[in-house]
């Protein structure tokens, strides 16, 4: 991000790089806490792929994206598309902690009548840009958003997070092709390359080699440790360089990251922790099972 861009970001905080990294690591930790509470409370949901995205989402929602929680439809805002819509908990947590809606609403996840649907829905949740949940459709919508910004000569960017299993959908590659062809360099894709999908390891179910794949579609490919804040921030900054090509950041991640008994377990893709499991998980994350992690979270 250029200085001008980051300055405009309402959430941006002064401080040293180390302070910035610590702040984002703490945000990721809080996202994890909320993901676990939320899914435990709901009794269902997708912790595994939400946890693996925590640092990615923390960097985006607490640093990189230009957003104004008080004005969710501010025209100049950056757009984020959660193409892997089942990771709704991490998105909802970020939106709540950033103040798009009251944190208490997180407890209503997946309940009848809640504004927090099982998969993100733009009509019920402030801050959700498009509706996702059916895999493989988000990158196309992100292309459309980026194309709209291009038509309007607007400076906002579009970001899109995909699952690695999700990239088995042909539509992803139709979109990848189009983004390169239309030279949408105001678009950045991120792949949560956690190596697992529902039925097992991606390499066993239906292998996808992300880096050469995106390269062959004409994208600028960056790699990052998806749990390293400095790595992610550097890649995100590089992705915005704007070279006439869209950029993708392939993020090496661990599914279930942060909770020892969930890490690397396909089984934790789509089931909620029991109260006991929640307590253990929260302890590992350095907070008790009771009450809010930090009053108000890192929301500013």
């Amino acid at each position: 991000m250029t200085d001008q861009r980051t300055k405009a970001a309402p959430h941006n905080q002064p401080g040293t790089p180390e302070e910035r990294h610590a702040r984002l690591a703490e945000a990721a930790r809080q996202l994890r806490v909320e993901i676990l509470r939320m899914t435990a409370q709901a009794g269902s949901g997708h912790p595994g792929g939400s946890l693996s995205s925590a640092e990615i989402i923390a960097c985006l929602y607490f640093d990189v994206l230009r957003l104004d929680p008080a004005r969710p439809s501010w025209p100049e805002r950056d757009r984020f598309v959660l193409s892997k819509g089942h990771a709704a908990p991490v998105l909802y947590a970020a939106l709540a902690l950033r103040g798009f809606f009251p944190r208490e609403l997180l407890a209503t996840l997946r309940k009848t009548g809640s504004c927090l649907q099982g998969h993100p829905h733009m009509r019920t949740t402030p801050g959700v840009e498009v509706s996702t949940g059916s895999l493989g459709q988000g990158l196309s919508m992100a292309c459309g958003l980026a194309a709209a910004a291009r038509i309007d000569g607007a400076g906002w960017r579009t970001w899109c997070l995909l699952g690695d299993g999700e990239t088995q959908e042909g539509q992803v590659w139709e979109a990848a092709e189009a983004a390169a062809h239309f030279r949408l360099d105001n678009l950045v894709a991120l792949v949560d390359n956690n190596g697992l999908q529902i039925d097992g390891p991606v390499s066993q179910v239906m292998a996808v080699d992300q880096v050469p794949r995106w390269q062959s579609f004409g994208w600028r490919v960056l790699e990052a440790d998806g749990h390293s804040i400095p790595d992610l921030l550097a890649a995100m900054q590089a992705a915005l360089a704007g070279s006439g090509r869209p950029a993708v950041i392939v993020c090496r991640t661990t599914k279930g990251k942060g909770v020892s008994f969930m890490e690397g377990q396909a089984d934790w893709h789509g089931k909620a922790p029991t109260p006991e499991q929640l307590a253990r998980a929260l302890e590992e994350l350095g907070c008790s099972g009771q009450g809010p992690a930090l009053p108000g979270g890192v929301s500013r």
Partner: protein
Amino acid sequence: MFRPGTGTAWGCVEMTRVDVARLPRQATRDAYGEALVAAGRADARVVALDADLSGSTKSQKFGALFPERFFNVGIAEQNMIGMAAGLAAAGKIPFASSFAIFVTGRAFEQVRQSVAYPGLPVRLVGSHSGVTVGQDGSSHQAIEDIALMRVLPHMTVLVPADGPSTRALVNESLSIEGPVYLRLGRPAVPVLYGEGGFAAPPFKAGGSVTLLAGRDATIVACGVMVAEAVTAAYRAEAIGLSVGVIDAYSVKPLDRDAVLAAARATGALVTAEEHSVIGGLGGAVAETVAEEYPVPVIRVGLLDRFGESGAPDELLKLCRLMADDILAAVRRAVAVKR
């Protein structure tokens, strides 16, 4: 000569016949091409997308005039719909066109999830519907697109019968909030509305046009079948039947009042569409009357079969989609009524 277009003057005698065979002809896709350009001129939010068929769907001219607002995504209909959804989410009004089977079928779930569920104002434009696609055969002939789009919540389904109503509906669609499916055809068809034809009323979602009033039965038709329905109604006179005709260009929302009024007034309905008899306009009419005022509904359409290759006229005959087939259905409806 202009004639009264709308009205429920049941039983009134028509002054002069509209000579359908002599009307000038225009393909609805050609009218669409013109209307799209006009919409693009009138509203800067209008953008267009196509999937390597812009010459056939007639979005090409828009592309030439407004290249920065036109996206040919290649042969990738799913991505086209997703991009249209993204453009709409950013405040644009996208018209996404391809052959009807590809825009509604190949991209069905994209239409459902990315467009219909959030109710985004994407205009899906399906040219080359029905068997009048002709020689290309079954793979290119949409016979189920109305059923596909009708079952989706939030979706408006419009099936214009001619050029003028196509232009009016494209224009009207600019002010419809949610998604719209516009079904178009390949061949030139009679220009029913205007000089020498019927008076053009305002065309709007949920509307219909009562072209002819009848006493014994009413034909509810859409698209190319409206002209056939008018011909059938005229022929019915020769066998002593007074038959009304409704142009049900808005298949969803269906003009319930008009359909129920026709059921009440004539006690027998026939539907006519260049589509399967399952789930389309016929299904909509059968569902509607069954709920409030059950009368016989005989559906003219493809009898649960795919199309095939051939000249459009021959296929209409083969598939029993001609005026005489409608007339046979009218006789059957009247017989069931008794």
